């Protein structure tokens, strides 16, 4: 097989599905959530497990997912870098398909984050860097770790707690009509600010929901995509990037700007050969309300200190010039623990014209993931235009 570039639309997502249900799914174990999503995504592509020769997942052993589905792969990727692992899997799968190491790659996610059915026991490691230098001080749950640099980010820009609330209010608008979303009640900035306190400056609605769910993607070459029944719904990978920094929030190179967002997104734009003005829609992994603010600035969509006003002025809402987190995001739609898969699923739905709240005239979507608590990042640029 001749070598092709993994970028520029040569690799296609031909199957994409979330689990039949997301939210509270106490009758399915973690591995069954993987399997449910995988079988639905393969059906969506017009393929079966027998066609799959490459498989990737995070946190769960790739072997367990392969075995569950009866797959005997020749390519595996167990990259586990937090919730953006699935963006990295797409990037790695594209390279594998481009070099002939795999022809049909299945990427799965399943997590019983709320009901905790069939999940491993949660455990802390007092000998790890976090066990020695974060957890003894109470920085344990994501809301007490991911949130730590937020005040430094806000204060450096003359921004404040209201800017966090504006993100919540803007994203909630997308979730209100979406029956799969967890939080669908309209909210005001003042209601968000006076909501239950979690970790100042964060109130409840500035933190993601906690749910059960899963999702899966099927990737093939664009050439092979043309022969599948799903051909007219294929979504093409234009470019991608990934990076990491530290497993300790305290060791970020800069508390007010995340280098991994800057590096991963710069490579995605460079490899895709497109500019920010070309992007019609963005998914910004939002475990907490400050993340879309960091991402808007670090990925170059707005200038320093402009991310708060960009939300408040409505540019990210329905009808805005850069619709963001159009499923409602992790804070309103769903968040099983590793949200990245759901961000990609929504980008694919938008590019296929199948979203609950559809953005008109979609051609290009930008997807920015974050892993762990400012550990890592991965970016994708996706298109619905065949190369």
């Amino acid at each position, binding site marked *: 097989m001749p070598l092709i570039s993994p970028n520029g639309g040569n690799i296609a997502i031909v199957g994409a599905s979330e689990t039949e249900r997301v939210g509270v799914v106490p009758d399915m174990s973690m591995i069954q959530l993987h399997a449910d999503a995988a079988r639905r995504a393969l059906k969506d592509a017009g393929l079966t497990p027998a066609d799959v020769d490459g498989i990737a997942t995070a946190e769960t052993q790739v072997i367990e997912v392969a075995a569950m589905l009866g797959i005997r792969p020749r390519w595996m990727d167990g990259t586990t870098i937090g919730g953006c692992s699935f963006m990295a899997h797409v990037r790695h799968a594209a390279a594998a398909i481009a070099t002939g190491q795999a022809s049909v790659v299945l990427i799965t996610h399943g997590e019983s984050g709320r009901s905790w059915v069939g999940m491993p026991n949660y455990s802390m490691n007092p000998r790890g860097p976090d066990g020695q230098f974060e957890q003894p001080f109470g920085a344990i749950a994501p809301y*007490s770790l991911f949130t730590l640099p937020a005040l430094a980010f806000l204060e450096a820009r003359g921004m404040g707690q209201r800017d966090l609330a504006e993100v919540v209010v803007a994203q909630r608008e997308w979730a209100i009509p979406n029956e799969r979303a967890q939080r669908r009640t309209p909210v005001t900035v003042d209601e968000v600010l006076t909501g239950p306190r979690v970790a100042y400056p964060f109130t409840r609605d500035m933190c993601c929901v906690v749910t059960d769910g899963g999702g899966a993607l099927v990737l093939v070459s664009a050439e092979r995509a043309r022969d599948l029944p799903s051909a007219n719904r294929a979504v093409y990978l234009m470019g991608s990037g990934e990076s990491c920094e530290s497993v300790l929030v*305290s060791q970020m190179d800069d508390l007010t700007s995340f280098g991994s967002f800057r590096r991963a997104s710069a490579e995605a734009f460079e490899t895709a050969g497109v500019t920010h003005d070309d992007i019609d829609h963005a998914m910004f992994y939002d475990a907490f309300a400050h993340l879309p603010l960091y991402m808007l600035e670090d990925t170059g969509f707005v200038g320093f200190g402009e991310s708060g006003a960009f939300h408040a002025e409505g540019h990210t809402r329905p009808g805005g010039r850069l619709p963001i987190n159009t499923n409602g995001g992790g804070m309103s739609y769903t968040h099983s623990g590793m949200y990245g898969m759901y961000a990609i699923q929504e980008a694919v739905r938008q590019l296929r014209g199948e979203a609950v709240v559809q953005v008109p005239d979609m051609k290009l979507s930008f997807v920015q993931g974050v892993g762990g608590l400012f550990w890592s990042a991965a970016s994708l640029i996706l298109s619905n235009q065949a190369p």
Partner: protein
Amino acid sequence: MSIGPIPEPTPETAPFWQGAAEGELRIQRCIRCESFYFYPRPFCPKCNSDEVEWKRVSGRARLSSYIINYRPSPEFESKDPQIIALVTLEEGPRLCTNIVGVEPEPDNLRLGMELQVAFEPRGDQFLPVFKPVRI
């Protein structure tokens, strides 16, 4: 004695925790590029030199960012809010720690405020925590 998770030193981090037990904040410094760095490792993450040394540092720091955690993890056996902070030492490195000696209210916590290290017993270890120099 505060209740909560107890750190377990490894060979590379033991001098940090030994220092804390003796009431000293000890941080590594690279002899070649003269930078202080954290967390502990026996080589410099900036220039890859093996020539590094442990130094007792001043314990002076400034508040870089913080949260007030209203939902402490169950390991602490207390519902009292915690001030979890990122502080930047005078010598450069940043640490995750707790701010003590002040009520957990935003009005008491100004970014950039001066802090001084103190040591709090936790199990068989001592944790470096920080107090405002002026309240």
